């Protein structure tokens, strides 16, 4: 989230598209109710199903799964055509005026530079014209036909309300009503917030869905302001933290990158990360990358990381592919090229696409280790459960070790919520039986492996032998020690850069925040964005002052939020070019002639003059990007792409299937179905009574929603002769499931490109262990395809067929 849950009360309009907050985030959704009740805010829901959120909305429109980009580009077109633009904001705070290279263009659904064979773009034309002074050329009058604004205008021109209806199935009048409601928020004193979740991310072009809305929010001037923003509701309780700390193939904590093998040494790695400002006088904060990176290396390897060994650069693995993400790993596993696999609190047998493939892949492992507080299907993938897990147990030669771990009540530490608040929690109870917490388990594995390398030697033992592990009890590091390590400390005296005689941090002291990080080896910090969370003032994540001065919703002294305890990102953009709030009733910060101050930590240098330094300090341009240069693989503007399995062809290019740059493994391509065989669009979803595959272990939740069902319209039920509550078989090119049919009015057929499209909703909470009845999940049916930029699987739009099955109906 750019903002926070409690900030939603400040909004005038909520759009829930790509999520279902009332169902999946009920207690956070209460802030929408608060805004409706106290401010008269309105709620719009756009979703394939009439969801629980839709049931309390002021306006609802249906949309075909996987067609959101067309809807969003249609909204942008409407705003431009009807002058619903916050012009001062757009001109000053976005790259609307920057000039783009002449070679850049778009035709037939593709941008310039597409190479069909490589399934990739040559992105060299997707960039600004750079002037002789080394800065991007601009035309503040927006007259130049090659400025970003005019290119955007041309790009969205095709998305007329008629075209939106044709692609998305949303009736034109409904689309126009929503556009009109949103258009009101172009006023500097009206704000819309976007709340989205997996309904936008789990597509082969998920990142472009989100960019589409972010662009709209910028055009309306809704980023950085109270009650506005792009608010990713997120899933698990610490999915934000795990992402921040970079537990992904290609990440280093704080959104730094694991090097690739093209970056053979430190100097080469740093050369592509210079982040020189592209406009005069701009911050371009990533210029501090070397400080974050050196401090990380010192945190990992201490004295073994020195300037003369490139800070132990070669202790880091180098990637030969963009990432060894979960989909690639299962492909390698299926080819017999992975031997050991660890699942810590993760149930991939139900969570990753094409369960048949996952089972096949796991069966080729030598050893699978699971660490979980509960039984999981993954740990028992080899166990035969009839139709629910029909495997040949004796033929599976994988050894499985199942380790019992702690749950939240038995552990201490911080979780990061969607609003970036690091909230500390305390241990309440003891673990059952011999269960142990995850830190202890990881420490035990590490100490044993290190001992083996100490005594036996072996392959490149240095990064293991030299890993810092100076905890009071090496067998079980305390959460506070680990938290202090992420915050960072001074290894030797840290000096004030403007006065080299002044020490700002004495050796051994915790650093105040990341402004004290250095690239000379004098500081260590595991995760630079968390620097400030545990400094000499103590554990700021444990703060419990719930005062909220002037009821802004900021709660500045409740726990701690990254970065720097800042509650609203880009909050400098809540003020105009003179530093005065666009809406004085919604002030966050303001410029008093000398400095910025207010209710929140300013997202700008406190003394940066308002007319000179622009608000988007992480970007080289200093402004936000309506045109994202070559930073995304599938285009600098979002363009409509069909799901890989779609009932209709792409209206711009009939030859184009799905996202043209998505990585598709050969076997998975062969496993894609077509609408002749699989005429219905399926989409996965979640229920408020359950959390993923956990709560089926809870008797209360298992009783509330005991049985797997699929949701279909009355029309589809009639067409296929399916009885209300009757049993059905649903199958895709990859598998089949049996379920109870929930026949509802919440799903209606849509007309897309002249064709009737039926949607099948498939919730995901059942498996073969736990207290609920045995069932299946959508991953028995879904294709192995990820988003072009981040490899999030396409769970929200795929094709199935459905028919009545044998079995007694339930009422």
């Amino acid at each position: 989230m750019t903002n926070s849950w409690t900030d939603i009360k400040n909004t005038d309009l909520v759009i829930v598209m790509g999520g279902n907050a009332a169902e999946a985030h009920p207690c956070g959704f209460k802030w929408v109710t608060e805004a409706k009740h106290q401010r008269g805010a309105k709620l719009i829901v756009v979703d394939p199903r009439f969801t629980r959120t839709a049931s309390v909305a002021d306006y609802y429109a249906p949309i075909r799964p996987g067609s959101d980009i067309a809807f969003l580009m249609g909204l942008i077109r409407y705003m431009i055509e009807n002058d619903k633009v916050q012009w001062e904001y757009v001109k000053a705070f976005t790259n609307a005026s920057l000039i783009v290279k002449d070679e850049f263009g778009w035709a037939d659904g593709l941008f310039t530079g597409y190479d069909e064979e490589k399934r990739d773009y040559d992105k060299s034309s997707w960039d600004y014209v750079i002037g002789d002074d080394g800065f991007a050329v601009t035309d503040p009058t927006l007259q130049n036909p090659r400025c970003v604004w005019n290119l955007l205008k041309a790009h969205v021109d095709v998305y007329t309300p008629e075209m939106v209806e044709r692609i998305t199935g949303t009736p034109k009048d409904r689309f126009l009503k929503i556009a009109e409601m949103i258009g009101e928020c172009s006023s500097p004193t009206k704000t819309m917030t976007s709340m989205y979740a997996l309904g936008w991310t789990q597509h082969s072009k998920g990142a472009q869905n989100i960019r589409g809305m972010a662009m709209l929010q910028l055009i309306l001037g809704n980023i950085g302001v109270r009650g506005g923003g792009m608010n990713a509701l997120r899933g698990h309780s610490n999915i934000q933290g795990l992402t921040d700390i970079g537990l992904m193939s290609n990440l280093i904590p704080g959104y730094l990158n694991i090097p690739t093998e093209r970056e053979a040494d430190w100097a080469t790695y740093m050369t592509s990360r210079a982040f020189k400002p592209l406009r005069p006088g701009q911050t371009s904060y990533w210029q501090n990358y070397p400080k974050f990176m050196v401090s990380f290396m010192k945190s990992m390897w201490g004295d073994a990381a020195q300037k003369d060994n490139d800070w132990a650069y070669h202790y880091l693995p180098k990637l030969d592919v963009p990432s060894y993400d979960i989909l690639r790993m299962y492909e390698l596993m299926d080819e017999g090229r992975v031997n050991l696999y660890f699942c810590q609190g993760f149930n991939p047998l139900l969570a990753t696409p094409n369960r048949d493939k996952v089972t096949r892949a796991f069966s080729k492992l030598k050893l699978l280790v699971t660490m979980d507080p509960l039984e999981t299907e993954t740990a028992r993938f080899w166990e035969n459960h009839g139709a629910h897990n029909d495997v040949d147990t004796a033929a599976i030669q994988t050894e499985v070790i199942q380790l019992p771990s702690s749950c939240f009540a038995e552990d201490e530490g911080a979780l990061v919520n969607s609003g970036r608040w690091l909230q500390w929690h305390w241990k309440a109870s003891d673990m059952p039986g011999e269960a142990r917490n995850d830190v202890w388990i990881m420490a035990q594995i590490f100490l044993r492996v290190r001992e083996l390398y100490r005594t036996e030697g072996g392959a490149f033992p240095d990064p293991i032998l030299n890993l810092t592990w100076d905890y009071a009890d090496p067998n079980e590091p305390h959460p506070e020690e680990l938290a202090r390590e992420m915050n960072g400390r001074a290894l030797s005296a840290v000096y004030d850069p403007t006065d080299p005689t002044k020490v700002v941090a004495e050796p051994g002291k915790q650093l105040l925040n990341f402004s004290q990080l250095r690239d000379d080896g004098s500081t260590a910090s595991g995760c630079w964005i968390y620097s400030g969370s545990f400094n000499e003032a103590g554990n700021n994540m444990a703060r419990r002052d719930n005062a909220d001065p002037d009821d802004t919703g900021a709660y500045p002294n409740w726990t701690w939020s990254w970065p720097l305890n800042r509650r609203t990102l880009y909050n400098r953009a809540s003020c105009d070019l003179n530093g005065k709030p666009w809406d004085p009733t919604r002030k966050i910060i303001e410029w008093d002639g000398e400095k910025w101050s207010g209710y929140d930590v300013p997202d700008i240098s406190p003394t940066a003059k308002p007319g000179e330094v622009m608000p988007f300090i992480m970007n080289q341009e200093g402004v936000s990007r309506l045109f994202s240069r070559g930073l995304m693989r599938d285009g600098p503007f979002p363009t409509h792409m069909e799901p890989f399995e779609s009932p209709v062809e792409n209206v711009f290019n009939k030859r184009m299937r799905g996202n043209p740059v998505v990585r598709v493994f050969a076997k998975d391509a062969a496993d894609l179905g077509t609408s002749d065989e699989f005429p219905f669009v399926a989409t996965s979803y979640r229920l408020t009574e359950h959390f993923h595959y956990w709560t089926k272990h809870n008797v209360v939740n298992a009783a509330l929603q005991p049985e797997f069902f699929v949701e279909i319209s009355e029309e589809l039920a009639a067409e296929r002769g399916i009885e209300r509550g009757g049993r059905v078989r649903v199958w895709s090119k990859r598998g089949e499931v049996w379920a109870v049919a929930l026949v509802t009015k919440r799903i209606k057929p849509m007309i897309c490109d002249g064709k009737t499209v039926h949607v099948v909703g498939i919730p995901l909470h059942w498996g073969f262990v736990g207290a609920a009845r045995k069932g299946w999940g959508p991953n028995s049916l879904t294709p192995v395809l990820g988003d072009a930029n981040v490899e999030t699987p396409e769970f929200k739009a795929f094709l199935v067929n459905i028919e009545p099955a044998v079995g007694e109906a339930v009422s």
Partner: protein
Amino acid sequence: MNIDLSRRSFLRLAGAGVAATSLGALGFGEAEAAELAHVRDFKLTATTETRNTCPYCSVACGIIIYARPDDTGKRRVVHIEGDADHPTNRGTLCPKGAALKDFVNAPTRLTQPMIRKPGAAAFEPIAWDDALDRIARAIKDDRDANFLATNEAGVPVNRWTTMGFLAASATTNETAWATYKVVRSMGVVGFDNQARV
């Protein structure tokens, strides 16, 4: 630590005191004794209260966990409720959060390490030390056999692709950091978490 003796247990004692006084004054001494004889102790008596957050979605509602020792001396959760002081949820919980106690105490909680041998039809118990030694040995042997120190061009790449690790997105930051250190130091690149799915 953030544990106090339950304020409710204090209220309970105070409330009982008021009732006893009024009933006694009205001459219902015997009735009072009979009543008290079959009223069970208030279940939060002598529990500890601990501040925590709900482990499910990332709204991260504040909760208060009430626990007390069982027969073996281990502290067990007896009740969980919303934390009224928490700015986000202000004491409210959803149908999942409201049932958290039965998640912590689920019959399918794991209590001891288990091993399933190749081809076997069932898990069998294994001691922690044996399980951990086995895992460490497997890591060491596989890493030594399959670690790629340099690529064909002779560039140091130091990666190990035959092992993968999925991390949990409901563990703490501190667990995540300890996990990151251990997994990365070995050169593992097949590293992921629920952020993608």
